[in-house]
């Protein structure tokens, strides 16, 4: 016999299930001596830092100005990326410590511990098999997507092993992948600034580094952050971490990210082969940026519904008490279009402002509920009181 439940009980049960399934609010601790993933992670990051120190240490005295310029410029360049990624790290938000660990893997392990030695060996083998001219045309595009995407993806696997409760969905893979990619991209950018300084004989070092800063800042918009986000969301689908197991979808997303990466690396040869110099320009400024954004949009659209459903389920019980309306829960758990639509539906500037603040406060409440494991703690009550205050003050 089934026990009939009230809608409030059903909503609370759905909230508990969503919190359990998403793992939102679970703590993350990197230092886990009983977890072998921690030791492999530490080996990769320490190995990468060691290799990095060797690489830069040899020429730092000669090319220090170029290296310093690259480090400073790309540190500043990282800030808007962090703001952008923090905005997208919403719904069942990943903790900063986990994302910092992801960034560190990308910056040190994936770059210097894996990609640098592997890329050199791949290119050398290609040269022996097909000759230097072929390598010059096609080598990069058939090397970096393999070593670098896999190298970055390995970081996600380790973080999965270190944060089983937290890393649960393809959207988690997308966000963590973006942070791994950002670490990789910034580290690679600094490396290129250093290399360009050395290749320009160490003369006008700041100019050599700035040359790379200007080129890579623009091309970075369609670079490792995007590739890794798509690749790592694919890894999560492949591993059956979506709502349903979709291994083919996962494989296709991973493959698409690698093809996108390879197309950029072989842009000149590919564009020229397709349509001469016009082909290069078209690929560079039109085809690849559009294709990459479409790919990211697709990966995002496939991954985000699960997260939105979890957030809706977490906030839904608040409609039973009248704290939030159905429309507010839908908007708070929705994308930016849904939120904007809700705000625009209000009449007058004050109401629109109130709607904006209420949605933020609703998301705060969801976060406090996640931190409290769904229980009514003091912080949760405070978050509820904030919503009531906003209604009182602004009506």
């Amino acid at each position: 016999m089934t026990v009939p439940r009230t809608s409030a009980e059903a909503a609370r049960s759905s909230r508990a299930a969503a919190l359990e399934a998403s793992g939102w609010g679970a703590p993350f601790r990197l230092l886990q001596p009983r977890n072998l993933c921690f030791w492999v992670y530490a080996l990769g990051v320490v190995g990468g830092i060691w290799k990095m120190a060797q690489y830069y240490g040899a020429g730092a005295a000669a090319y220090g100005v170029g290296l310093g310029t690259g480090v400073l410029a790309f540190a500043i360049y990282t800030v808007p990326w962090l703001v952008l990624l923090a905005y997208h790290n919403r719904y069942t938000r990943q903790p900063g410590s986990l994302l910092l660990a992801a960034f560190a893997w990308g910056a040190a392990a994936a770059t210097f511990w894996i990609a640098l030695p592997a890329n050199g060996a791949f290119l050398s083998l290609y040269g022996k098999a097909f000759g230097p001219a072929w390598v010059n045309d096609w080598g990069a595009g058939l090397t970096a997507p393999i070593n670098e995407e896999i190298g970055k993806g390995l970081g996600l696997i380790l973080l999965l092993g270190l944060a089983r409760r937290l890393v649960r969905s393809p959207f988690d893979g997308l966000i963590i992948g973006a942070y791994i990619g950002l670490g990789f991209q910034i580290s690679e950018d600094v490396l290129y600034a250093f290399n360009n300084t050395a290749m320009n004989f160490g003369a006008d070092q700041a100019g050599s580094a700035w040359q790379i800063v200007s080129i890579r800042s623009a091309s970075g918009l369609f670079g490792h952050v995007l590739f890794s986000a798509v690749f790592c969301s694919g890894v999560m689908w492949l591993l059956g971490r979506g709502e349903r197991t979709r291994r083919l979808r996962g494989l296709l997303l991973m493959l698409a990210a690698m093809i996108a990466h390879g197309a950029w690396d072989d842009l000149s040869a590919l564009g020229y082969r397709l349509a001469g110099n016009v082909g290069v320009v078209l690929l560079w400024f039109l085809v690849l940026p559009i294709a990459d954004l479409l790919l990211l949009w697709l990966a995002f659209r496939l991954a985000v519904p699960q997260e939105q459903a979890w957030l809706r389920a977490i906030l839904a019980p608040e409609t039973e008490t009248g704290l939030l309306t159905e429309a507010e829960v839908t908007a708070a758990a929705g994308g930016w279009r849904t939120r904007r639509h809700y705000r625009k539906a209000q009449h007058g500037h004050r109401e629109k402002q109130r709607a904006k603040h209420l949605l933020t406060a609703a998301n705060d409440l969801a976060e406090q509920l996640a931190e409290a494991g769904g229980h009514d703690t003091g912080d949760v009550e405070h978050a509820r009181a904030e919503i009531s205050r906003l209604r009182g003050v602004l009506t």
Partner: protein
Amino acid sequence: MVMPSARRHTARATWVPAERRWLGLDRRSLLPALVVFVIAIVLRGVVPLIDQAVAGHDVVQAGERLNLNGGLTISAPVGWQLIDGILVGANTVVPGAGSPSATLTQDGVSAQAQVAPFTGDANALLDQINRNDSRSHDRPGYTVDDSRGAVSAAGGIVGVVEDYTTTSGEGIIAAYALPDGRGLVIQVAGAGNQLSAHTGQIGAMLRSVSLEARP
């Protein structure tokens, strides 16, 4: 004796239960960690070993020249292995494409050519390279022998050349300031006896620098 009843036990997420351990490690962590470790070792260790074991770089044939872009070419020593760089007439997607750098090796001797924008003269370029190399940890004990001389190449291009020694070997550096605003540096390194065995070929390479005027 009656033990007091235990309080309700709640599993901690960060606690690894005794029955789930192997050599003190969480069994659930073994598979992902080992998969990552094996893939990483294959990429960063095994593939480079395969590369070292495989011979087969292209060998320079008589009359072949390296294309260093913008009409700049140098004659590559016959019989040397071309590690990096593009030969004139190579089958590239963009016809006539070259590369601003090239690396050749033979019998433990390596030669590297690098082209980049440079506004000074050949002496200034060589001074710049000496400053870099004397500060580089890759070349401990870097010392030039103060025997700087001129090297005449084709088309009136005159470079300067100097010998140097390090704690691990010796080498030759030649620098050229090209009329199109670029600089060319050729560095040859190896042990003393190896270098001297190839003196003729190295000298011919340094004199072979040629810049064709481009429309």
